[in-house]
């Protein structure tokens, strides 16, 4: 633990400065959002640029898209820079700074040194993340983000960076264990970070090279679309598994490393050949009595080669499995809406006096039920008022004893059998929604989640909704709710995740 705490103490300034820097960044973005949301809504960005920044949807005025683009697609680079610095400082940095020699003379095994340093780097990255999360917590309560985007979601998404950070840290430790100097290790790790980022950016804007993204660890972090699509657990397994595998390689490399020798050291991975057998020639005759050359670490060469091969196989198969699964994984679209049902307005069947009106507000009626009688003013005939549909009475416009002209609305019935979730889908996503797709509906106020299927998709957009002008157009999608829980009532807000078709 001594090395762990010492390393954390050394990193404290960096953790504070990075963490507070990122916290200020998110705080600034949050406070900025309300004032720029309107203008961002009306700007039409080219889709390729939005794709490259991981924006789902075309509307940067939406808080999920806004923070996704403004923080979660770039923030991991900033945290990544910290991890690159810390992970290469941990061991390679000690060597380059000349502080490794006194340290290595202390009675720690290489494994102890490695593990303590690695844990310290991870804890430091977690500290940076926690400070970033404080940035959300300190700013979001003061701002209306418009839609259902909570601090919990933002904080959770912030901490989701840690799997990526862990992988990057393991890579940094690996380069630190084989590279000649800390600078070289940091340059290599930093380059990998940038390449990982660019691969995803290029892959998502150029359809022809879409598969490239599977080669990037950044893709598996799900960070660019995290506020919209969430995190795929399988991707997390890939990243954490990769971090452990690379970390183990780094451990082997560090155990085999010759400290103070400023050269690339891949020897730890290579089965040690008998390359010095021929060197006996230039020695004196007592070579034959020489003590046999010691094998390093007591681990035999075939065993080391086997472990190395197994790790490579695990990494490769992990990548393959991830590719197979993620390629067939149907993406989900998160939308919101409310519960609706078709209404039938019963009009006065004749002009005259409402003699009786037995219907009551909230009453459930069946088709053909008698709701009351009217007396025709001219011929004094009694005309019945009947329900044209089954449903629930939601409006009563007249009372008994009132006079009404023919065609005056008397009763409004909502057709409960036709109740549905009416969801508004952005024009950029509507092409991927089709009838029959599975939809998961969540009624937050009831704590209720039900499964359904898309029943119909509008072919014409609704009018531009909301107060903001220039907002992108919405299409209405209906998910039938027949036979749902009694507590689900008309007008209830609902969140939906639709299993949409993959972008082709």
């Amino acid at each position: 633990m001594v090395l762990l705490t010492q390393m954390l103490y050394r990193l404290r300034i960096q953790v504070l400065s990075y963490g507070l820097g990122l916290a200020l960044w998110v705080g600034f973005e949050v406070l900025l959002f309300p004032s720029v949301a309107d203008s961002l809504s009306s700007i039409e960005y080219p889709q390729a640029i939005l794709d490259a920044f991981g924006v789902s949807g075309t509307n940067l005025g939406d808080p999920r898209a806004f923070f996704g683009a403004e923080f979660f697609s770039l923030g991991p680079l900033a945290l990544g820079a910290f991890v690159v610095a810390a992970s290469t400082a941990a061991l390679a940095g000690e060597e380059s700074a000349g502080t490794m020699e006194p340290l290595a003379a202390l009675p720690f095994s290489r494994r102890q040194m490695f593990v303590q340093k690695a844990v310290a780097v991870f804890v430091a990255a977690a500290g940076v993340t926690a400070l970033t999360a404080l940035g959300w917590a300190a700013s979001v309560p003061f701002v209306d983000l418009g839609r259902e985007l909570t601090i919990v979601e933002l904080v959770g998404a912030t901490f989701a960076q840690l799997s990526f950070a862990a992988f990057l840290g393991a890579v940094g430790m690996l380069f630190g264990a084989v590279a000649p100097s800390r600078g070289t290790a940091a340059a290599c790790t930093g380059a990998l970070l940038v390449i990982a980022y660019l691969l995803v950016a290029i892959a998502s804007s150029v359809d022809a090279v879409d598969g490239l993204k599977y080669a990037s660890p950044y893709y598996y972090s799900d960070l660019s679309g995290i506020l919209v699509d969430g995190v795929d657990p399988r991707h997390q397994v890939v990243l954490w598994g990769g971090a452990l595998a690379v970390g183990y390689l780094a451990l082997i490399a560090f155990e085999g490393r010759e400290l103070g020798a400023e050269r690339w050291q891949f020897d730890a991975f290579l089965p040690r050949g008998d390359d010095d057998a021929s060197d006996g020639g230039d020695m004196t005759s007592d070579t034959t009595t020489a003590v046999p050359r010691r094998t390093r670490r007591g681990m035999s060469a075939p065993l080391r080669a086997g472990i190395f091969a197994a790790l490579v196989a695990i990494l490769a198969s992990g990548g393959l499995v991830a590719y197979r699964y993620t390629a067939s994984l149907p993406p989900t679209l998160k939308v919101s809406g409310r519960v609706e049902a078709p209404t039938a307005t019963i009009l006065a069947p004749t002009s005259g006096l409402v003699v009786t009106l037995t219907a009551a507000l909230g009453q459930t009626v069946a088709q053909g039920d008698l709701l009351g009688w009217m007396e025709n003013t001219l011929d004094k005939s009694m005309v019945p008022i009947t329900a044209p549909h089954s449903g629930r009475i939601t409006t009563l416009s007249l009372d008994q004893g009132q006079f009404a002209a023919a065609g005056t609305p008397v009763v409004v019935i909502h057709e409960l059998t036709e109740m549905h979730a009416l969801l508004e889908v952005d024009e950029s996503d509507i092409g991927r929604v089709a009838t029959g797709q599975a939809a998961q509906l969540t009624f937050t106020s009831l704590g209720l989640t039900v499964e359904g299927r898309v029943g119909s998709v509008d072919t014409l957009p609704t009018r531009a909704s909301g107060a903001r002008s220039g907002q992108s157009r919405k299409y209405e999608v209906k998910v039938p709710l027949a036979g749902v829980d009694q507590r689900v009532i008309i007008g209830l807000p609902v969140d939906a995740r639709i299993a949409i078709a993959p972008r082709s």
Partner: protein
Amino acid sequence: MVSFPAIQATHLGKHYRGGVRALAQVDLVVPRGTVFGLLGQNGAGKTTLIRILLDMIRPTEGRASILGFDCQDDSVEARAHVGYLPSSANYYSYMTGRDMFDFVARARGVQADSALLDDLLTCLDLDPERGIRTLSKGNQQKVGLIAALLAKPEVVILDEPTSGLDPLMQDVVLEIVREIAAEGRTVFFSSHILSEVERVCDHVAVLRAGRLVGSFDLAEQRRLAARIVTVRFADAPAPSAFDGIAGARFLRTEAGRAVFEVREGFDALLKRLAQFTVLDIDAHEPTLEDFFLSLYTDSAAPAVMGGGS
């Protein structure tokens, strides 16, 4: 009872891919309770040998042990008994000297001996509250030395401990080395300065181009106390003029000067020199170079005699 030597190396060798041979066939036994000097020029392999002992680099042949613990297989146990001062290390610049001592004590799981610490701080004239970043190279060296000695290790390995120190402090360090040996502990130290090795060491091993070329018990090797006398003549006589001087030996001619090695008094040499016109005369302790040259003269290896006539 089996008593393992403080340090033992058997056929120790280290070469790198590409054929660079840093160390070859080194056999070495450092008895306990002695001060053992490792002499050699820069690049002779002193630091390589020491780093193998501490498992920082791995030998390609042979083995080494400290107090019987194999330096590779039981390196943690071996290092638990070793205090080490590197030749050119840096120390955490954000720490003060005292932070560093506390850190080392915690890392070793020992209680810092405050009496010993105060003693060392006084001897070495070091302010432990100053940040390491503000210390001169020499004072950082003192921090490293104290950190190496604090846990009272059984074996103390010092890589060029006096380099960077002023002459007064060099004396103090050598005095500390003597005291450690007086307590029955072992000091293994490397140097390229013959005089300091001569002053404190019981044993000396000489490393040259990765090979051990000499190993001496100093009590018997009075030859190390020889003086090198360099004489400039107005008119240089032939080398044969210096044959058979009692207690002195002509070594070579160097840049027009005659070089002698004097072991048993200057009298006979001075009387012989008086036959010629002497412009200048200089007498000094043998440098390492002199030592090597005489070593090769003794073993009749003329190939290395650059200035021989």
